[in-house]
């Protein structure tokens, strides 16, 4: 398969393009998710459509850089309009997003149908921006993506600490007289740039997933901002690569959707299984803790019962204990568990008693629990 990967020009191009797209959108997604701009990303990617149509109408060219510039301007304009609407009317953010998203998309459709029905030459393939058509990528497109994406990454690295502060505490940033408004514009512009890079591969409809999923997954694995960005980038890259190879080696699996499904799969897996934050681990930890608490309760009950006798190691029959736990079927299991830890023992009459170790443990527990 490696041979196939290296040998096939289309596959190599597509895989490289998807990997670069995954990496760049992975980095940006950290900021998008932490700044809660996920749905803005969706709006921007839909709003980019008329830009593509207009860029083609004006220049007559399908060069990816020109279409990207058109898409970028439209996406950016969409963002600006969302801000304008929320700032100067009582229409709320979510309505403004939905409105800009769908109206821009509608204008885009009008332009695309207009172009299709016109007699302009060289127009085929513009609608591949709707769902993306990774197979149509050529080396030149990948090069454009690399340069534009690389520039975006350089900007992020240069203003790393400012962007981080912007995401965490913009008011404090403003009190340090940082130009928060410009940083905000810059960060949003980078978001637009990254979305535009992905349009040809993944398409306007699914691009939003690429700028949410990697970071949503990465957040589960780390509590460190830089590490989160790195993991997010790696997840984006791996899913891009994996998705495009899967798409190329299986028939009828379009690249964009399969990449999206891959990254979402990683998110689900991360939410479930990531150490510390994974909910499966939490469940297991909880079960273990409950079990430990139950066993400790049995141990302390033995200790309490023995208090009425001269020695804390006084043995009691299981039936006596069962009076305390009439419903618990696991009493014997608890006792056997304690026995295997050497905290209790069973004498020849079948009665249970604390061992010297068990007594020590009880004293410890009582001390721990008294504040």
């Amino acid at each position, binding site marked *: 398969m490696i041979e196939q990967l290296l040998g096939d020009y289309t596959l190599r191009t597509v895989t490289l393009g998807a990997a670069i797209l995954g990496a760049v959108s992975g980095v940006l997604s950290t900021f998008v998710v932490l700044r809660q701009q996920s749905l803005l990303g969706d709006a921007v990617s839909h709003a980019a459509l008329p830009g593509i149509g207009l860029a083609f109408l004006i220049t007559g060219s399908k060069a990816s850089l020109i279409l990207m510039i058109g898409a970028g301007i439209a996406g950016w304009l969409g963002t600006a309009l969302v801000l304008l609407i929320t700032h100067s009317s009582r229409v709320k953010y979510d309505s403004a997003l939905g409105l800009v998203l769908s109206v821009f998309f509608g204008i885009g459709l009008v332009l695309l149908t207009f172009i299709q029905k016109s007699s302009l030459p060289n127009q085929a393939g513009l609608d591949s921006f709707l769902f993306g058509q990774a197979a149509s990528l050529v080396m030149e497109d990948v090069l454009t993506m690399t340069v534009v994406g690389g520039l975006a990454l350089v900007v992020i690295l*240069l203003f790393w*600490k400012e962007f981080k502060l912007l*995401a*965490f505490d913009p*008011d*404090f940033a403003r*009190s340090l007289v940082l130009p928060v408004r410009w940083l905000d514009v810059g960060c949003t512009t980078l978001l637009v740039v990254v979305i535009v890079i992905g349009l040809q591969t993944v398409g306007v409809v699914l691009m939003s997933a690429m700028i949410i999923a990697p970071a949503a997954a990465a957040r589960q694995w780390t509590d460190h*901002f830089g590490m989160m960005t790195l993991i997010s980038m790696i997840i984006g890259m791996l899913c891009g690569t994996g998705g495009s190879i899967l798409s190329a080696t299986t028939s009828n699996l379009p690249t964009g959707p399969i990449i999206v499904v891959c990254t979402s799969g990683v998110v689900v897996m991360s939410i479930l299984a990531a150490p510390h934050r994974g909910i499966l681990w939490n469940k297991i930890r909880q079960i273990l803790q409950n079990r430990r608490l139950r066993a400790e309760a049995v141990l302390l009950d033995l200790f309490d019962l023995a208090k009425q006798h001269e020695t804390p190691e006084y043995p009691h029959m299981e039936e006596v204990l069962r009076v305390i736990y009439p419903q618990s079927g696991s009493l014997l299991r608890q006792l056997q568990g304690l026995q295997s830890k050497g905290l209790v023992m069973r004498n020849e009459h079948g009665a249970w008693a604390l061992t010297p170790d068990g007594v020590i443990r009880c004293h410890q527990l009582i001390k721990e629990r008294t504040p």
Partner: protein
Amino acid sequence: MSTVIEVRDLTVAYRENPVLWDIDLDVGSGTLMAIVGPNGAGKTTLIKTILGLIKPAAGQIRILGQPYHKVATSVGYVPQRGSVDWDFPTSVLDVVLMGLYGRLGWIRRPGSMQRKEALAALEKVDMVDYSHQQISQLSGGQQQRVFLARALVQKAQVYFMDEPLQGVDATTEHAIIDLLQVLRSSGKTVVVVHHDLQTVSSYFDEVFLLNIRRISSGPVSEVFTDQNLKLTYGGRVAIIKEPTS
């Protein structure tokens, strides 16, 4: 005692509604001042406007005799604890380092020098042991101490703090007040938005009673009277005086 904060005829409006009317405020050096008033009185707005976060409709603000943006490095700010997302993936030390971003300037990253400064600030709030903890694992009081350390590391002349005692445990409250008093004794000016009327007299030197407009301001012993409080809170408040022995 020189004037450190000077606010003249400050009016702030949100859309068309005034939120602060014609405020005058003077704070001298080495003063620990509480801003007190009911909810919606504009306490936070006043601080934010002085710090240039909100654009005023009219009036003048001078800090150390200069407009804010010229002396920003001499001003420390502790925002309300609830104003940030504490699930943000970052460590205690990282948050404190953010206080140095203003002095660091563009592009430069914090280095070992800055780390040392940050640790020293954490030492002052007794949080060194937590420096590598993720911030979501902190209690409310610990979060507040981290914010305080971030302001301390700014090595400012003037500090503005928005409800630093809101929802913290008693130990933290005392630790914070001790720290504020140390700052005051070393000649710094500290302005604190405060909500607990019972503690105003024991914690602060001066008080600024605010309800959209200035009701009264000056030394606590002169200004913090029942009559003024009634004016501030519209007669719906009774302060329980501790029995004088």
